[in-house]
């Protein structure tokens, strides 16, 4: 996959998902991990983890993917691909305010969101089948879900505890 093609894919996916980081996961998984096989599932998961622990915009993990594949030029180009569509804001500010209230746009974004829930979960199962080969991994996954969903712990704390749990289990079993 050339840098040009990667940029095009990232730009396309970003526009399609309205720049939503998690929603891009199934698209990247299908095209970069399964399709072109230029990225491993591990790399995709690592990049997503970065997005969760860094401040700022949540779709910037594509810079990480760009860096993994093409070094600094890849990171910069991938970033530009997701930032530049933001300039659509200027014409919108200058007289298309009514678009915001459009029921069609409302339905469209709702449809995209709802569909992406199904797609994300499908991608998770897909990745899990390949990546979670050890029982310990399942324990860590469930523990992480409990810590974030039920206990509402901070993401950094959760990741630290999950990592420690995995290491402890690995070394003690």
């Amino acid at each position, binding site marked *: 996959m050339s840098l040009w093609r990667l940029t095009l894919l990232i730009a396309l996916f970003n526009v399609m998902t*309205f*720049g939503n980081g998690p929603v891009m996961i199934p698209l990247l998984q299908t095209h970069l991990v399964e399709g072109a096989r230029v990225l491993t599932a591990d790399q995709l998961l690592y990049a997503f983890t970065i997005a969760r622990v*860094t*401040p*700022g915009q949540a779709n910037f993990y594509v*810079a990480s993917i760009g860096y993994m594949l093409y070094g600094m030029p890849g990171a910069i180009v991938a970033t530009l691909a997701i930032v530049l569509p933001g300039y659509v804001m200027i014409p919108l500010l200058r007289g298309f305010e009514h678009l915001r209230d459009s029921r069609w746009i*409302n*339905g469209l974004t709702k449809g995209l969101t*709802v*569909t992406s829930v199904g797609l994300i979960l499908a991608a998770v199962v897909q990745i899990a089948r390949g990546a979670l080969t050890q029982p310990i991994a399942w324990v860590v996954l469930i523990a992480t879900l409990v810590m974030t969903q039920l206990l509402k712990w901070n993401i950094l704390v959760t990741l630290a505890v999950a990592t420690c749990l995995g290491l402890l289990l690995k070394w003690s079993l």
Partner: protein
Amino acid sequence: MKSDEDKRQSGTRVTRGELFSIFLKAGLAFGGGLGILAVLEDELVSKRRAVTKEEFLTIYGIGRIVPSGTMTALAVAYGYKFGGLSGTVIALTALSLPVFVLTIALTIAYHYLRNSRLFDLLPVTIMPAALALIVVAALKLGKDVFRPSRELVIACVAFALAFFLRLNPALILLAGGVLGAFVLQKIEAGNATEKKDASK
């Protein structure tokens, strides 16, 4: 371009230096979009009164339909409002600098990790945790999805098409968006947004 015409209600001007520091501060905020939004609200509306509350909400509303991250769109909007095209570059750079630098640093860390024995531990630590975080992200997106509703049906069909039939998720996403435009329009009449047919 005529950048200075937009200051309809805004009393205070925001200089380029302030623009940079406000968006740098926003870029350092944790908690994704909402964290950034809170900083911008505090700096632009509460402290400086450079933007009215209504204007802030309107710009946020428009930003949500821009096909980039909403916060990226806000940086363009306020950069343009206070500094024209060069203002957009200043705001975008400031907002993106922290996340970009950290992302690259952590990616470089991955390269080192890859060549060490620690790499074998990733499948039982960060990887399953990351998968869990993706699930959490999906759950957050779909508040309406997890109860009997049209939304639930669409999400399930999308799952089945992607998982069992292995259709391209990009195509499924587009189809879902178009379908949503027809069947998920919010009815704007008062509280009757959700008709009672949802449970049947």
